[in-house]
């Protein structure tokens, strides 16, 4: 029984939250890794693209709700997703036209594009706030829990509860589906392959009759889709706040890079690595230990390796160790 309690506690506070968080990071990292893989630069505006896209989704969600449309047990926001993606893709394509294309033609070094994307980030940052404001917004509706902690306790008679939120499940399922789809798209379809070809050797792609502008446009559209999906799922699970999306950028980049830039599978692996090291290494084992160990051995302290103050430090330290052994990430990423 106590062993069960220990397992449930671990599931509830480590495994499920870390998996869900990992999936959230992975979804964001997919967008970053795609842009890096095809257009060969680190897109700093990705966090703000997520915010802007989620802003659109929220606006449409509100409108739908005001029309009395809902989506049953699923959040209404899912209905609004296509609109959000379309609007964001339009904005992003416009940005590409007016900003990035110039540098592409110039064959600017990747670092220039990075800085340019910072410029775009600043602008988008402000635009998002103009559109939807700075406040925290909750827009989740539909079923909230698959497993509710209290009900779980009651029905099983365990001392520990187990919670599994619908939004967590949605995120995990989407992340896995999206990564599979993207992997398939890039490696198996003609368009996907032409995108990889373009990223490998632009001149030769031209000589093979690949239309670079089309490749770029498709890349941006997919990236916008990823950004909006990631942003919406994150917002459904936590809440929407423009500033937080910007802050998400660092862990997202960390995930994409440690997984191996340009690799969709790497993005997933990286997301989970970051999430589990953040949650796992600062976990206080006291509770679990009390359940498992005989009373005499139960710890007085928290049995915590490091305090949570250092959770980023720990996850980054792990990331560095991983890179020391796998210098281009878990899945052999690219390096420009």
């Amino acid at each position, binding site marked *: 029984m106590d062993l069960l309690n220990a397992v449930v506690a671990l599931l509830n506070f480590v495994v499920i939250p870390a998996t869900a968080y990992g999936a959230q990071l992975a979804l964001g990292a997919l967008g970053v890794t795609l842009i890096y893989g095809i257009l060969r630069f*680190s897109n700093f505006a990705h966090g703000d693209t997520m915010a802007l896209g989620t802003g659109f989704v929220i606006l449409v969600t509100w409108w739908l709700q005001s029309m009395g449309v809902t989506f049953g047990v699923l959040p209404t926001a899912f209905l609004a997703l296509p609109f959000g993606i379309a609007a964001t893709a339009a904005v992003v394509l416009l940005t590409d036209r007016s900003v990035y294309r110039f540098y592409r033609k110039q064959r600017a070094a990747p670092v220039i594009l990075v800085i340019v994307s*910072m410029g775009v980030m600043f602008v988008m*940052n402000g635009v998002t*706030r103009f559109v939807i404001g700075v406040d925290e917004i909750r827009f989740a509706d539909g079923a909230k829990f698959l497993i509710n902690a209290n009900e779980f306790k009651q029905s099983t008679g365990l001392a520990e509860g187990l919670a599994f939120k619908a939004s967590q499940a949605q995120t995990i399922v989407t992340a896995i589906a999206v990564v599979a789809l993207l992997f398939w798209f890039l490696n198996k379809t003609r368009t996907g392959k032409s995108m990889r070809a373009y990223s490998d050797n632009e001149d030769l792609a031209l000589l093979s009759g690949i239309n670079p502008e089309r490749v770029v446009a498709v890349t941006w559209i997919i990236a916008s889709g990823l950004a909006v999906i990631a942003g919406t799922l994150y917002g459904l699970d936590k809440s929407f706040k423009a500033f937080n999306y910007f802050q998400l950028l660092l862990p997202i980049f960390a995930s994409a890079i440690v997984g191996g830039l340009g690799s969709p599978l790497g993005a997933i692996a990286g997301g989970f690595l970051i999430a589990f090291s953040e949650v796992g290494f600062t976990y206080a084992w006291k509770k679990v230990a009390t359940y498992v160990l005989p009373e005499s051995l139960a710890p007085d302290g928290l049995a915590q390796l490091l305090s949570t103050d250092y959770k980023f430090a720990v996850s980054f*330290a792990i990331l560095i160790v991983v890179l020391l052994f796998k210098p*281009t990430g878990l899945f052999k990423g690219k390096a420009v």
Partner: protein
Amino acid sequence: MNMRNILLFAGMALLIVLEGSTTFGGLFGGSWNTALFILNFGLLSAIMALGVNMQWGYAGLFNVGVVGFIALGGLAPVLIATPPVTEVWTTGGVGRLIFALIVGAGVIALAITLNHRLRGKVRLVALCVTLIGGFFLYRALFDPAVEVIEAFNPATNSNLGGLGLPVLLAWPVGAALAAGAAWLIGKTALGLRSDYLAIATLGIGEIIIATLKNEDWLARGVKNVIGIPRPVPYEVDLQSSSGFIEFAARFGADPVVASTIVVKLLYAVLFLVVLLVLITASELALRSPWGRMMRAIRDNEVAAEAMGKNVTGRHLQIFMLGSAVCGLAGAMMVTMDSLHNPGTYNPLRFTFLIWVMVIVGGSGNNWGAMLGGFLISFLWLKVESWGPAGLEYLTSGLDPASPLREHLKDSAAHMRLIALGLVLLLVLRFSPRGLIPEK
């Protein structure tokens, strides 16, 4: 330096002079105080940009942990210049702390030796035992020592305090701290390439900052240290000194204004001296065979290695130099603010903004990086007022009561970032390789 570059610098100087002398319809401040503040800030930024440019522009090292080195440098003024907290020394807290740190270092040294001496499975086991056991031993010694130190007067102290030495001494010490950290990092992570090095340095930056934020015994952590001694006189002291009042009167100036300006000028002179030394040294180095070697390494590491250049060694050297310069700037900045505020060190402001300076200015070119430092700091500080003013102008056609105008006005502060972004994009549009590109 060709004509164009001289003009660019002259333009920059003009901007600062305009800021000091005219308001020009609200575009400028019309105050020498803000102008000099911007100048000082620009000088600091230029130094930081020089440091980053050494790493990226000379050697192609993608360091995005800049903020960590600046922060580490910023620690120096606290440790060097603030008065010592004698109580924690006498209660033995410090002694125990130092002992704990020595034990910690010993454990690591032991682990490294074992790593070299042993082979195979034994090595793994021995390493694990040493590191895990060592960690707990260290914590067992360290935690109580810290408790003693932090227990003392938490409102204003709870830290070691400093050595009470002149604050200027903290500048080289800040550089040394940063260089030391860079050595450690370089030894482990410099084998990584491009963005992978970037994320590793980013991580190390975060680790340094997390430490500064949470280790209260070191410098009060997030509780900040204020009132760090300055190398220049205090304005209020000047204002009350009769000599100064006479001096100000000779220029027909108000003593308050005069004092604030004199203080800023003194800082400017100090910073300028440092900047001039650094740029001279950088330029001499860059134009020598050393610079040629660095460019070759940046260009093609494999070939440089095959031509007998020790790429790893050189990378370590330049990484330490660049970081030292950042650390120096960090120490100078804390000295100017007389405030140690770890919460302020966020990567956007102290890593990416510096990168923007380097790229906008022209990476690989010292003068470019310097100019970028001035220009971006000018913008960073000025868009705060330009943004809302611009919006005011744009919406002036709208009906004052219209909800759109209300909404826009409420969001005016966010024009700050939009304005910065737009200017950044414009500059890069017209000189995509930076204002003063590498030849």
